[in-house]
């Protein structure tokens, strides 16, 4: 199946804005994603042995949390949509001139930094920047600005992974 191009970005933005509003109106809280992997990690650690610190603070049932189930929802909803539009397929996305290992290591290290930073900032691009930004929360707008500053300042060093 031929893959379709993404929809108009403003149409997508309006749709995302409506989903965010619905989240506030139904759940009483915004969207979020980084809590998903965080809760999953806490759950795994708890099943292996005893926990303290952050994982203990998440309670005895870290997976019984709305953002964990929202993350699962994102996975299912995103996966189905990608499949229907012919955009699904097992690939490692990278520039054709970039080595496989470069891309794997950068994805892993980027994940580590984002995972840690998401806990420090108590949210990611969805939970902190977008959801808080829609309420004009100072910390959220500041976070969003800093994400772009951090990204643009360091982008040069990671450019090779996308070279074709």
């Amino acid at each position, binding site marked *: 199946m031929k893959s379709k191009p993404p929809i108009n970005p403003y149409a997508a933005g309006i749709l995302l804005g409506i989903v965010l509003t619905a989240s506030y109106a139904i759940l009483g809280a915004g969207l979020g994603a980084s809590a998903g992997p965080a809760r999953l990690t806490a759950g795994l650690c708890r099943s292996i042995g005893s926990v303290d610190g952050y994982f203990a603070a998440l309670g005895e049932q870290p997976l019984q949390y709305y953002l964990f189930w929202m993350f699962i929802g994102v996975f299912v909803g995103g996966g189905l949509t990608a499949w229907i539009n012919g955009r699904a397929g097992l690939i490692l996305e990278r520039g054709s001139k970039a080595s496989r290992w470069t891309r794997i290591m*950068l994805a892993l290290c980027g994940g580590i930094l984002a995972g840690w930073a998401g806990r420090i900032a108590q949210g990611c691009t969805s939970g902190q920047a977008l959801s808080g930004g829609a309420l004009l929360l100072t910390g959220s707008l500041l976070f969003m600005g800093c994400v772009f500053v951090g990204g643009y300042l360091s982008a040069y060093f990671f450019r090779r992974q996308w070279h074709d």
Partner: protein
Amino acid sequence: MISTFFSQGALSSGAALSAAFGVGLAFGVALELAGFGSSRRLSGVFYFRDLTVVKVMFSAMMTALLLIFLLEKSEILPAQEFYHMATFYGGSIIGGLVFGVGFVMGGWCPGTAAVGAAAGKIDAWIFIVGSMIGVLFFDWGYRIFYPLSQWGAAGIATADRTLGIPFSAMLMLMSLAAVIVLWVCELWNPDEKRFVFSRLRENRMLWVFCAGLMITATLAPSLSKPVSGEVSFFSDIDSGADHIDSGELADILMEDPESILLIDVRPAAEYTAFHLPGAVNIQPQELLPQLARDFYDFPMVLYSNGMTHPAQLRNELMRNGFQDVRFLTDGLNGFLDAVVRPASLRLTPLSAQEQKRLEWWNQTAR
């Protein structure tokens, strides 16, 4: 009026978890339709190759901002029905900078990585595993990292209050910024690496969006009266509607104690040792969660030994949509002085009403 899972304290209930899954489904669909299941596209924003991220993020944020504002002002979704995250300057700045580096390095953020992983992107799976390692690291250094995340606490702060400008001005500022940023992104042609102004005529969708945005941002603040705007704070202070004096409180407690909720915000030990008749003890950080559901329009009086904390808490409650909160003038110390002090210890003779209050205190309240 909508009652949310948050305000019912039921965000962890089975129904809420199912609803969250449903919201997540729609969230995933929206992200995927925007093309965010691709790390190449996402990281493109940092190389001015593909500015979809900015276009979608900004239009989504502005759409939600105006929709939520309208729902709030029309009292369909009052502010106390939904969660407002507190601001921590340190956490936002450090977290934001490092997150930005992680984003451009990995090519994903957590939400889009879930979409990418489901679409079969191997690098998205690796990113998610990486983010779990990052969480492990946070847990490992929790004793250092937790204070770091809480550094620079500023409470529930919104940009308009932080900047000291009216909300309507902030709304207009954000809308103008959105229009400018969206058009700059739209006119930029990444293939030719230059701005192409002929696109002004081409993108009808963006014209419609910008027009809608500006019209709504202009009209929205005047559509309804502010429920708990900052303006009313100043007039409340001016007219004295923010506080209640000891005598008036004593009269209410004497005649109709059920008509108000009297809240003692002092530490539990002080409350146990002594408190005003009928007062309940709620710690400051517990006020919102304990009162949000049932008491947002119920008359309340806050007191402590002095006035500073109750006055601060009163404003915070009003900002969160409570309708009728006052604090006790001169605090508990003032109350004891004005109502409870025996006639023999006073410089001026008691009025008839003061005499009545004192008798009430000695006979029933004490």
